[in-house]
């Protein structure tokens, strides 16, 4: 019998405590609100209300970006990818470290290493990318990177890249016409030889 009334009392008291908590939150909504009205307002990520400066964070995992002018075609990123979402095809350049005007190939990277290869295909399938960031570490020229964060000076942050067609998410970074341009160059090479 005592247990019966104790149970009733416990129910009432614990429920009152709970009601008090929710009431407190309801009246303090202006202070406690954590919602972000997403498309209208965006926090500079990942700073929320934790007092962290935008320039200090280590890396941002977002869309992959490639500076094709700096790529020397070493295939290290392709090998590092655990899901094989990077596909690179290279051809040997006629002369190492020289520009090829016809296809817009630049012979020397911004780190002033001379390129021996022409990248005719550099595709990244972002539908398959698992954002593990493993491809960016081995790159000797730091030309493959994830946008934003410390790389913001190279490319601003870009995390809203949804598309209507799945094939639009395959990014083709090689300059258009490189393949055909190289094919055209080849016979002239032979004639010279």
């Amino acid at each position: 019998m005592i247990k019966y009334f104790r149970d009733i009392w416990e129910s009432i008291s614990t429920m009152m405590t709970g009601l008090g908590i929710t009431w407190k939150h309801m009246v303090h909504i202006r202070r406690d609100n954590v919602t972000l009205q997403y498309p209208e307002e965006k926090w500079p990520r990942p700073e929320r209300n934790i007092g962290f400066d935008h320039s200090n964070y280590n890396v941002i995992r977002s869309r992959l970006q490639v500076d094709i002018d700096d790529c020397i075609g070493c295939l290290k990123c392709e090998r590092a990818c655990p899901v094989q979402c990077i596909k690179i095809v290279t051809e040997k350049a006629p002369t190492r470290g020289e520009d090829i005007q016809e296809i817009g190939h630049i012979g020397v990277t911004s780190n002033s290493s001379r390129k021996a290869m022409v990248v005719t295909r550099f595709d990244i399938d972002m539908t398959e990318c698992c954002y593990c960031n493993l491809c960016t570490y081995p790159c000797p020229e730091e030309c493959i990177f994830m946008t934003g964060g410390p790389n913001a000076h190279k490319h601003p942050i870009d995390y809203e890249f949804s598309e209507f067609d799945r094939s639009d998410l395959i990014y083709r970074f090689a300059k258009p016409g490189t393949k055909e341009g190289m094919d055209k160059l080849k016979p002239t090479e032979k004639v010279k030889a």
Partner: protein
Amino acid sequence: MTVDLLFSWLSSLTSTIEDSSILLLVAIIIPCVALFLVMAVNAIVMVYVERKVAAFMQDRVGPMGQGVGLHAGKWGLLQTVADALKLLTKEDIIPEKADKFLFILAPFVIFIGAFIAIVAVPFGETVIVADFNIGIFYILAMGSLGVIGIIIAGWSSNNKWSLYGGMRSAAQIVSYEIPAGLSIIVIIMLTGTLSMQGIIEYQSGGMGNWIIFANPFAFIAFLIYFISVIAETNRTPFDIPEAESELVGGFHTEYSGMRWSFFFLSEYANMLVVCAVAAAGFLGGWHSPIPGYFDSNGWGIFWMLSKIVFLIFIMMWFRWTFPRLRVDQLMNVCWKVFLPISLINIFGVGVWTLIFG
């Protein structure tokens, strides 16, 4: 605004029309349309309020928007309108193996149950469609009509989850009728009438005369009545018939679009009705808390509505704070706690009136 008043007013207006039966029909239809509008507006407003209350309690802001157009208007005011439009245009799916006749019938049964109960709800001194001499009894009886609809919905969906929901709901509503009814008896004992207006009239003259403050037993009766009707309207912590984490959606799992919104509409209409009974029966109805002030007819509607809204808010507050009971615990609470206490209550009120009354 009873039908009689409307009828006599109409006939005085149009003395040229011979056939009074048309006038009678018009006099009946006008309040019905008005009541339907009350129900619809109630649902639209209450859904919005519920979302906002829930959001604020959870440190969110709920539906928001910067303006009409892409978003749901300033402070999301148009959110429920948008929801209603979406529900209206949604595909109406009837499961192939469902009992089609009953499946279509069920939402209407529930809706009618809620709708005809409102008829006897007084919103003001004259604002009442039908002031029966058995008003409160009528509302209780009609309010429990909805359970038939829920059972029909649960059975006809031909879905095991819905069946569970329907069965649970039947057991629950039937059980909770009893403590709710026994608490109403306390009012009837004090006022000596079953008419809604009579009960409210009894409580005239300020807060002190409200039945809830009449004696401690009446206060307990109010609590029991309020908790029981939460169970009757299937709201947390007694929402086991629809328990989304257990039964997916309970009896309305298979419904979609407009049919589903009928369940929704009647849930909020039911809340309105039971809160109106609580406000009229315990909280002085359309009387102002301070005697003599703000007591005119217009203020009466205001007081009644604000009392109803206050009680509905408490229901929402409960919903966003508490977990859900299990089906057998629900029955335990009803039969082992509420029933004995409300029986003692009746006895107590009797003794109290004998000594102090």
